[in-house]
């Protein structure tokens, strides 16, 4: 018999031995890491859920909120929670794909310039650094996978410090390799740039309370001249003005490539849409609504402010607002559930269409310049005092279509460091509402003792760190239940 049949070549996939040899193949390797961001586990769905449900930005839209999500909102969850697992798994998928890029850096020999090689490597370091930033700030010390696994055994938990250090190392490497955002054009727009890496690293330092370390990074972003606030606030949350001058980095979505990817997207296949509109939309499932405390946070003449904050209307939909290019009006009839609270407008698709569905193409703005300015204000306040913070925070308020009176105001004096903290907390809450930033803000301010009151009534200490997912402990031979975070 002819035994050639016994050594088949898989006609569907490439061999690892022949891959990573050319520039385009190397770029494809890092593209796969980007694709992992679009998974259901992350920015397609579960990322905005876990960040929002852990924060005081949102409240339950009603009984339709699934039990495992409601448990996170009510802070009664543990390591078996599938939302917790999804985010954990999603970030490690990014890490695995980035690890392959980093490990194979010397392989490509054809069709590749040194600039391209550096850039792709820098992108991989950025994505891995971002993933460890997410993991180490929410779970504490985590298993550090820095090379692609070759067997089924997992890594032990590293310390909190070592996990932070991994973020610092990765992002520092990325900063050394990535080009400025302005060098990207055409089909490269949306890739990570030096500014994005600097901003995420600054966020980590801020989270650790290391303001001095954050300062030069933020300063470099501001000094780069690459970024400015866009005049129209909502340009940051609609489909038409993506990757604009205010944006440091976005996760890209698009409706142009079909509906695949709504349910069960795992970063495989063409999956370019997000559930966001459908989940939060006032006329859609409205699983989550703005928290009444957030609604009350906006400055209004009725609560003693000089001016109604226009961001209220940019962020929230109220009954009587028009949508669908002005053709439809929100009413008791078409808004679902509790109509005494407004609905989310940021990131909703109905500004230009009649109804939400499971395919939204609006990019997820992970870092924008307003956040950078507010971080800089906070750094200045903590290191040099409130006067140095003032120009940065007021720059955010001075956006053309916001034009709120500059601090200090009657409601928010900024004479002392403490007063400025209050103003910064207020400004971050309203400027960045519904952008999945609040959760980590509360966490770091809580740890630093900067919170006046505990904003989450159901919070208890054991939720300072999230539980390691049970399936990680169960399947990772280097972990036991002893490794679980306290209280779980």
């Amino acid at each position, binding site marked *: 018999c002819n035994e050639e049949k016994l050594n088949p070549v898989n006609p569907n996939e490439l*061999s690892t031995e022949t891959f990573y040899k050319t520039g385009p193949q190397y770029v494809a390797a890092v593209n796969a890491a980007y694709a992992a961001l679009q998974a259901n586990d992350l920015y397609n769905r579960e990322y905005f859920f876990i960040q929002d449900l852990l924060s005081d930005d949102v409240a339950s839209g009603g*009984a339709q909120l699934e039990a495992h999500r409601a448990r996170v909102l009510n802070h009664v969850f543990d390591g078996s929670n599938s939302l917790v697992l999804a985010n954990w798994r999603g970030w490690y998928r990014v890490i695995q794909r980035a690890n392959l890029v980093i490990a194979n850096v010397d392989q490509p020999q054809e069709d590749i310039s040194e600039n391209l090689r550096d850039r792709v490597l820098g992108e991989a370091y950025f994505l891995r650094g971002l993933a460890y930033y997410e993991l180490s700030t929410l779970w504490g010390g*985590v298993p550090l996978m820095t090379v692609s696994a070759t067997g089924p055994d997992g890594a032990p938990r590293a310390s909190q410090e070592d996990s932070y250090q991994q973020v610092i190392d990765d992002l520092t490497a990325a900063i050394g390799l990535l080009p400025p955002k302005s060098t990207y054009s055409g089909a490269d727009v949306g890739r990570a740039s030096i500014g994005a890496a600097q901003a995420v690293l600054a966020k980590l330092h801020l989270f650790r309370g290391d303001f001095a370390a954050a300062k030069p990074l933020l300063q470099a972003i501001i000094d780069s001249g690459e970024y400015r606030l866009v005049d129209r606030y909502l340009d940051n949350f609609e489909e038409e003005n993506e990757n604009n001058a205010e944006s440091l980095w976005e996760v890209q979505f698009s409706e142009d490539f079909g509906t695949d990817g709504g349910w069960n997207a795992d970063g495989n296949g063409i999956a370019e849409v997000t559930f966001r509109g459908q989940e939060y939309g006032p006329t859609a499932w*409205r699983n989550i609504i703005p928290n009444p405390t957030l609604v009350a946070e906006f400055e209004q003449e009725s609560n003693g402010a000089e001016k109604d904050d226009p961001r209220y209307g940019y962020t929230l939909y109220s009954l009587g607002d028009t949508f669908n290019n002005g053709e439809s009006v929100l009413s008791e009839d078409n808004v679902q559930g509790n109509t005494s609270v407004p609905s989310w407008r940021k990131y909703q698709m109905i500004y230009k269409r009649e109804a939400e569905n499971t395919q939204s193409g609006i990019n997820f703005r992970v870092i924008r310049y307003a956040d950078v300015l507010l971080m800089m204000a906070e750094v200045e306040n903590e290191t040099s005092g409130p006067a140095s913070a003032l120009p940065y925070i007021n720059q955010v308020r001075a956006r053309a279509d916001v034009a709120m009176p500059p601090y200090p105001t009657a409601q928010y004096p900024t004479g002392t460091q403490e007063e400025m903290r209050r103003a910064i907390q207020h400004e971050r809450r309203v400027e960045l509402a519904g952008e999945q930033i609040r959760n980590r803000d509360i966490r770091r301010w809580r740890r630093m003792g900067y919170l006046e009151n505990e904003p989450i009534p159901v919070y208890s200490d054991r939720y300072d760190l999230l539980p390691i997912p049970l399936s990680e402990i169960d399947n990772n031979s280097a972990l036991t239940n002893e490794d679980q975070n306290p209280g779980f």
Partner: protein
Amino acid sequence: CFSGNVSAQDLIITGTVRAPTGEPLPGANVSVRGTTQGSITNLDGEFSIEVPSRESLLVFSFIGYASHEMKVGNQTTINVVLEENLSALNEVVVVGYGSQERAKVTGAISSVSAEEIRELPVPNLASAMQGRAANVSVTNAGAPGADPVVRIRGIGTVGNNDPLYVIDGMPASGLNQINPADIESIEVLKDASTAAIYGSRAANGVVLVTTKKGNKGKPKVSLDAYYGVQNAWKTLDLLNVDQYLDFGRELLTNSGDDIPQRFNDLGEFANVRTDWQDEMFQSAPIQDYNVSVSGGGESSLYNISMGYFAQDGIMKGVDFERVSFRANTQFDLGDRVSVGQTLTVSYTNRNDEPFSGGRSQMEHMVKMVPYIPVRDPSRQGGFRATDTEDGSDPENPVLNAALKQDRYQDFKILGSAYIDVKILEGFHYKFMTGLDITTGQRNEYTPMFNAGDFMFQVFAAISQTRNSYVSPLFSNQFSYNKDFGGHHLDLLGVIEKQTFISSSLTGSGQNELTNDVRELQGVQNQVTTSEKTEYGLISYVGRVNYDYKQRYLLSASIRRDGGSRFGPDNKWGIFPSVSAGWRISEEGFMQSAGAISDLKLRASYGETGNDRIGDYVYQATINSNMFYNFNGTLAGGSTINALANEDLKWETTIMKNIGLDLGILNDQITFTAEWFDNKTEDMILGVPVPPSLGFDVAPVANVGTVRNRGMEFTAGYQKKTGSFQFGVNGNIGFVNNELISLGSGNSIFGPAFQGDPMTYTEEGKPIAYFYGWEVEGIFQTGEDTSQQPNAQAGDIKFKDINGDGVIGADDRTNLGHYMPDFTYGLNFNANFKNFDLSLFLQGVQGNEIYSNIRFHTEGMSRLFNASTVVLDRWTPNNTQTDVPRAVSGDPNGNARASSRWVEDGSYARLKNLSLGYTVPDAFLQSIAKNSISNLRIYVSAQNLFTITDYSGYDPEIAVRTEIDQSLGMGIDFGQFPAARTFLGGIQLTF
């Protein structure tokens, strides 16, 4: 027979051999005792034979009849009537690459006959085995056209446990496409001595299927038809509208949630009362028609048949039909050469249960809100579901059934042809080629509709898949048999090659303009993907069978398989077996024990393999099916998303078997006992990896050892004389499954629900036992709840297994297992004059079911309809109950994986009861003038009653779509339930 020197003394005797019915027996042997002289009867049962003297003894024999001896004496014409032989020992059973007399079998084989298959109308051949053979566990899927789960002697691996099916010598697929009416016999090879000859594919047992070949004689035309009606035999008690509203208010009030707006004013739904079970269940027809013509001449046999089978589901939206054609022929070309072929051509058409959001239709049915109407002409699509003001988002299952199509149409050609050449006396060469081809298409279609806020689709979704499967087999078989002085020797050598090539092409798109076009025309977002896989297997087989005076039996076989699925250093595997038998009843000292007609002891040992893993899994490959849109441009991504394992090799099962056969009173009473011990080594396992490795596909490795040990018994009694004849036989099988080791030290979690794995697999326990917390009771007001910080009065108190004062992951424990302690079948049939009655009881005992459907009806974790069990929920005024309080969001995890959902799954079921009447010959003659030779009419009932304590729809739980067949068995997600069927049929022979 010619003799060169015919002497004057030579005598020619002629005559006829007939059956007790008077029918002539063609092909019967007539021989002269002590000589080599012999003859065979012709089509009319006539023979002619030369005998040496008037003292000669003539021996008449025919398979299935007792042989008969007669002295020639003065007769020149001898007419004999052969009595039917009650003993099964002379039966020929099909074994791998041949056949063997039952008496000489040294292994464990269970047979299912054509009569048994036809007695119980079944849609497919696997269902025909249920309850018929000890330790052949068949779990039917209730949905028409769905494959049953077949497990022979337990579960040998956490991987694929399906047996190998060999149809007329051809390892084949697509069992639903074989018409059970075409089957002559099914043989289940359970131990190494019988199965190891199939080497790397035999570890899960082998099922040999033989199709009908025709008998010598004039053409016989038969017509078989039945028609029946199937119904659900059980429904659940669900909440009515008022109960639902009360329940919902309490559920949401307890969690501090708002009451849905609609609760305050049902408005347009004020008078709607929908019974969703009534809407979904239906009386469903089942029908089967077969016509065949068979017969044969001196040197030919033929059997040609055509069948049509159709079955609707007892839940709407599911149906199956099959049209099949078969032609089998066999020709003798002179003394040395024979050729033959088998051919099935079939078409099947199946509409599958729509499966949206990972939920079964039954789950939607029990959760659907009772005040929502089924239909609403004002809505696009014509159906209604909930809106956000209802606070609940179940799907309308009737909509799913009516609008969502998932249709499979498959065409199959399965055939084989052989030529057998007698090279020398006893030495044959047989070349066989087989071909298994399936081409199919799957059409998925969902139109635009809008039934409510949670149930709408803004475009028509169209997806079509074309697939093809081609598997050719080429087999060269050499056999030699020789008798010498009481010794008998059979030798077999085989070289063969089989390949399996699958490919598929899928296209999908969306039509936003119309629901009327169901093809991919004018659609947006077109996506096309294709895939191809190939598997090759090369095999060398050898076997020796030896016996001395049919008293001492020895058999040995060896197979060497080379397969493409395994790593470069492990392509080849060797699978040997040896067995021996001692027919004690043939010993001289037993001749005095007249009552014992048969007594045989046998033992076997051997190794078999399991190759059921995907193709190419040992290779490290790059998956390039990832995309990311940079600035509106789609960019391709490539990565490794599975760990590879170059060292992957065959899974090996070491099988030991000891058997005893006993026949008493000329085999009126028969008894068989088997003991077996199967140990699977190098079990192929998708090794669970921690999520932190970042892989989406579990790597496959050889880890772990599994042992299945057990006993099985089969007994029968039959009485075949007089006008009242009856037979009763039964079988029972016990299996004990244990995972002895799991190499890597990892344990394996089964399918998860709401974050909790429902099964767990670890060393020292059976594979995939139910896993979770144990319920201890309900917290009463004022009770200490410190072990469960989120608990309040009315919540479930779980057992603190590790005694650390806190309920955590370590408190999960073994809650039971889906494998029964034993399975059994009991068959009784009787004939009285022209009436026949058969009764078939089948059951399993000692298994548990994880009732996920009860999570939906009693879990109370979100607002959905529920079972009336929740009316007994804990409230401050109803504290003596085991149903916890209703609280949306379920903060305490009352509905977590726990003993609350695990129930006894034992059942005994009257699988079939049928009563037939055969129209008397005399009457037939008078009305049909010989045109009809036999006419039987019958009525039959399936699943007439089921004795079980299981609370769900049906205790026979096959595995759900998308759930792992080895780790997710016994979990009732709301699988399609078995029906109760009443039918009537007619069997006509011309």
